[in-house]
Each structure stands twice: as C-alpha cells, then as structure tokens.
C-alpha cells in the first residue's frame, strides 16, 4: 500500500526527516510513536503533500506509484487521508457542503459522475451515526466553534465519508476525553478492512488500547529507530522516551 524509501525532508533550513523507511501493507495498522520534535507530524504532513516541507531525498510510493511530487489534492484523489492534529476552521462552509465538494472533486478526478444527492444524504446519515454525530452539527460551519473533541470526531467523519485507502491519524487522541476517544476509535475500527491501511501517530499508548496496531515504530531525530509489535507501545509507556534517547 504505502512504501517510503529513504525519505529526507526539511522545513526552511532545518532537516527534520533524515532517512525514513516504512512499508505498510493493505489491512495493517501501524503506530508511529516518539517524543516531541522527533518528526512525527512532519512525516504525516509530507505523506499528505504539505508544500511547506521540502523533500530533499527519497520517495513515497502509494500502490507502487511514486506520489512524491503530487499536489495534496492529487494524493487525496488517490486515497490518502490525513486527520489533522489541529483541524482548520472554515466559516461559512457547512460540514455537509464541504464534504459534498471534497467527494465530488475526488470523483471528478477519478472520472466518475457527481454523487447523486440522495446517495450523498444516505451516506452522510450512515457515517454520522457511526461517529454519533448529531445531524444539526452537519449544518454548522466547518470546525467553527467546535470543541476539541468535536473537531476530532469530525475528522474521522470525513475519513468515513472519503473512504481512503491510507488514513493517517495525526495525534487524533490529543484533546479527547475518554468517551470521545472510544467513539473515534470505534469509528476507525469499523472503517478498517483488508483493502485499506491506517497509520496512527501518537505520543501516548492510550489510543492504541482502542486501535490495536500490528506494528509500532519509534521515531527519534527524524529516523525510525525501533520497530516491533504492539508490545513495544507498552514498553515505551513503561520506560518513557528517555530509554530511546539514551540508546541513540
């Protein structure tokens, strides 16, 4: 599904990613953990195509296609989805209209007709129920005045609507109380299938109790310094990141 080879990236003059290698197969869940400043959010931004970061070396392949030079929207059309740590407020554009636009732009790019209105409504109803989202919420301006939990739930709702092949959840657990965390994780789990993959970026092990990863990677100083199964997350929780820092 996703194959990252020797990825180096910088922002302004600062090197942040220093040779990332990562293989994610369809059906898998990978967790990327690491201390603050290790490059976790940069990695997710670079995969999604944020032009503020300059890729200086290496490539990103999605289903065998090199997407390193693609614009963010082109990556989205190919099935990449990034759940933002800090979703942006867009006043005047309702959640529903934003989703209609996003879905139809993707369909257009993939040579499909616009989704019929009744089909769209049905999908919105189903997916909002999955995330336990009130219908009234959908006519509100996107993220405007949303609580932290509402914003994250709305991110996963968008993920459910867009049905990506590769979903990257960047610190989706931050700012969530335990109920919201359960709803969000439940949503993600229901969307998992043999055909898609999820990368969970998190600072804490807590989310991984709900979204159980197949693999855990530790990012430090722009490199993946340790990989393992889900037990690695518990080890990190117990020993703290100083353990990794001292080894590197």
């Amino acid at each position, binding site marked *: 599904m996703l194959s990252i080879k020797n990825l180096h990236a910088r922002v302004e003059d600062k090197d942040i990613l220093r040779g990332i290698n990562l293989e994610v197969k369809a059906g898998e869940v990978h967790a990327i953990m690491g201390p603050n400043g290790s490059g976790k959010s940069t990695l997710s931004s670079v995969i999604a195509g944020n032009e503020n970061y300059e890729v200086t070396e290496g490539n990103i392949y999605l289903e065998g296609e090199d997407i390193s030079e693609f*614009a*963010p929207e082109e990556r989205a059309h190919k099935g990449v989805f990034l759940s933002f740590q800090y979703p942006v407020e*867009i*006043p005047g554009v309702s959640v529903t209209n*934003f989703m209609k636009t996003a879905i*139809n732009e993707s369909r257009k790019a993939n040579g499909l007709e616009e989704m019929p209105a009744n089909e769209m409504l049905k999908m919105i109803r189903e997916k909002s129920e999955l995330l336990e989202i009130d219908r009234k919420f959908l006519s509100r301006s996107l993220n405007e005045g949303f609580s932290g939990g509402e914003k994250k739930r709305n991110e996963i709702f968008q993920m459910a609507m867009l049905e990506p092949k590769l979903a990257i959840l960047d610190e989706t657990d931050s700012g969530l109380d335990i109920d919201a965390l359960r709803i969000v994780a439940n949503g993600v789990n229901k969307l998992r299938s043999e055909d898609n993959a999820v990368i969970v970026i998190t600072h804490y092990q807590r989310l991984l109790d709900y979204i159980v990863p197949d693999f855990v990677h530790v990012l430090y100083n722009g490199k993946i310094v340790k990989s393992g199964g889900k037990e690695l997350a518990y080890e990190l929780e117990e020993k703290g990141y100083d353990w990794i820092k001292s080894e590197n």
Partner: protein
Amino acid sequence: MDLKEKLLSSFMAFEERIDVNTDLHNVRTEALKNFENKGFPTKKDEAWKYTSLNAVLKNDFSVFPKQDNAINYPDVKKFFLHQIDTYKLVFIDGIFSSFLSSTTHDGIDVCLMSSALTKPKYKEIIDTYFNKITNLDDSLTSLNTAFANEGAFINIPKGKVADKPIEIMYLSTGNEAALMVQPRNLIIVGENAQVQIIERHQSLNSNPVLTNSVTEIFAQERSITDYYKIQNDVQTANLVDNTYIAQKGHSNASVHTFSFGGNITRNNLNFYHQGERIDSTLKGITIIGDKQHVDHYTLVRHATPNCESHQNYKSIFDGSSTGVFNGKIYVEKEAQKTDAFQQNNNILISEKATINAKPQLEIFADDVKCSHGCTVGQLDESAMFYMQSRGIPKKEAKALLMYAFSNEVIESIRIPELKDRITKLIASKLGVNIGFDL
C-alpha cells in the same frame, strides 16, 4: 477644454431646460460656485490622497446624453434581481426609462426625482429634505447638486412598509464615446416605515463612463432601511458615490457595498445621528484584480447618546489592484454611551496589489465603547493545505477560503435572493464552480 470648463459652460445650457425662478435654482447656483472654486479633487486633498481621478478626467465626456437610447429588457435582465418581483427605477444614460421601470404611487412613492423637483405636491418635501444633509463643502457633491435633475425619488410615509424591494438601475449604453452622468437620489423613510433598496450602475460596453452620484437618505424615528450597492461594472466605468444618511431616534439603517468591478470606484458613505438609540451598519465586500481601484471613505458621526454603529469591510486584492479604506468615527462630546465598532480585513493575493488602510477615531465623549481592528494578510496556508488534503483543488480551495473570509458580510444580507446572487457573483469573480451554490 477641460472637463471642469466644459461643465461650467454647459450649466447655461442646462438652465435653459429647467425653471430658474425657484429656490432650488439658488441651491444649484450656490453649489456650482463651490465646484468652480474647488474644482475636481486632487491627490493634494487629504481625502483623495490615494485616489486619483486625473486620468479619468482626461476623457472627453459628453455631459448631456442623447434622449433616444432604448434597451430591450432581455438584454439587461441579468443585472436585475429577476427572481423576485421588485419596483424598478431604470435610467439609461441618465435618462429615465419608463419602459423598463416599474414605479408606484400606491401608498408609497417610488418615482422620479425630476417629477419630485417640479411637481407642486412634492414642493414641501423637496424644501424640507433636498440637499439638507450633504456636505456643502464637497466639490463633487456640489457639482452633482448644481446639475441635479434626475434620479430616484422614494418616499415611504409613516408606518408604511414597502411591499417589495426597490431596484435603482443606472445603465450606460456606450452610445456616447464617453459619458458623464450625475444621478441624484432622495429617499425618505418615514416613522416606523421600512424599505429595502438595491442600487446598481452598469455599463453595457467599454466606452468610458464617469458617474458622480449623490444619494440622500432620511431615516425617521424607528424606521428600518436596508440599502445594497452592487458595483460590478466594466473596466472602463468609474463611479464616485456620495451617500449621506441622516438617522432619527431608534432608527436602523444599513448600507452594504459589494465592489467587484469597475475602473475607479470611490464610495463616500456618511452617517449622521440625530436622535438616541440609533443603529447604523456599514458593510462591504471588495474583490478586485487587474488595475482596479476601490476606495471606501466612511464617516459615522455620533452626535447623540446611546447609539451604535457597526462597520465591517472585507477586501480581497489580486493583480495590480489597489484599495483604500479610510474609516472615520467621530464621537461628539454629547454622544455618551456610544458603541462604535469598526473592522477592516484585507487579503492581498498578489504581490503587486496594495491596500492603504486608515482607521480614524475622534472621540470627545468620555463614556464610550469604541473599537477598531484592521488586518492585512495573505490566504491562510494551513487552511489551504487542509482543504487540498481533502481533495479540493487549489483554485477551489482558494475560492472557498475567500468565500469564508467574506461570509460575515454575506450573512447579513436580508433579501435571500440577493444573498444568493451575491454569493454567485463572488463565485464567478473567483472563477470557480464548486459542488454547491456559493
């Protein structure tokens, strides 16, 4: 002969067509004298520091258009709010078109300035209101007053509510090589009366036009007046709009100005308070590009206690366009408990675009709430990335952001069909067709 001389000498020709033995004529000649003394404003005038009419004034404008210009409604339908029924006052090259208009005297007067100025039954109203709140020092207003003859006359008597919006449309055919028009509107909204008015100036081809328009609005006690100005003219059209509003106690008046086109557009918008518990709203959206220029010059004069004013101007500049926002709030000593708010947000999309923003607060009362905020920025890159990452292409994402930016102003349009029209105009201005009606 330059335009000033031409105007001064054509005044005699104008006098031959009107009744000169009236008080009104004294007003006209006084005004002409002021224009003669002051001439057209130049960049040396503080109020015109950033807007120059020099290049425009070099055109050889006709000041008296031909009488026989006709237009077929289907050709101009798109400029009207045709989805709903409206009263219409339509002027072609400055001359009233009864064929395109829909006037009334049934309970309210929606008719012509020329008849109000000449018919005995309106004499009292004209004597009471005509040229009573304009700035007598202002040379362009004086010039308009000197030649004031045609325009909209709207009188909503006490307690009446205009049953449908009124559209005032000034069309220019371009049959003259270059045309100067000077519409004069007088609007009286009586006690407890209500009205919604839409004003538009539209050229039908690319021959230069200079419009020097003056509108006086008298909003009496507890009246509600909503005034919308649509400025989406062609690249060779120039507009100086001088609007004066006098508000009595408990009245509510709003002016929304949508500036999407034209060469030079100057909006002089003046609110004067003459009673307590007045509410004034001044809002605008400006979206321009190329070498277009839009100048908003606003004044709210708080002269009485317990009144509010709300100003919110959003502007987006592309290409080599230039903008000016000069917003003055004047709070007199007597105007205690004034609540005055002013906001001006600007986005520069191109490196060649410029905005000169100058908020001015002059406060002489000691118990007031006045705030102003002015920002100049670029489009939020993180918001762009957010939308693109959801599959929305850059151009559409940009348009959505600009729409979101101007949304606060769009939201307060109180005619739904107009709101729809303005959002569509914005979408077409931004060159997008996104999945839902902007």
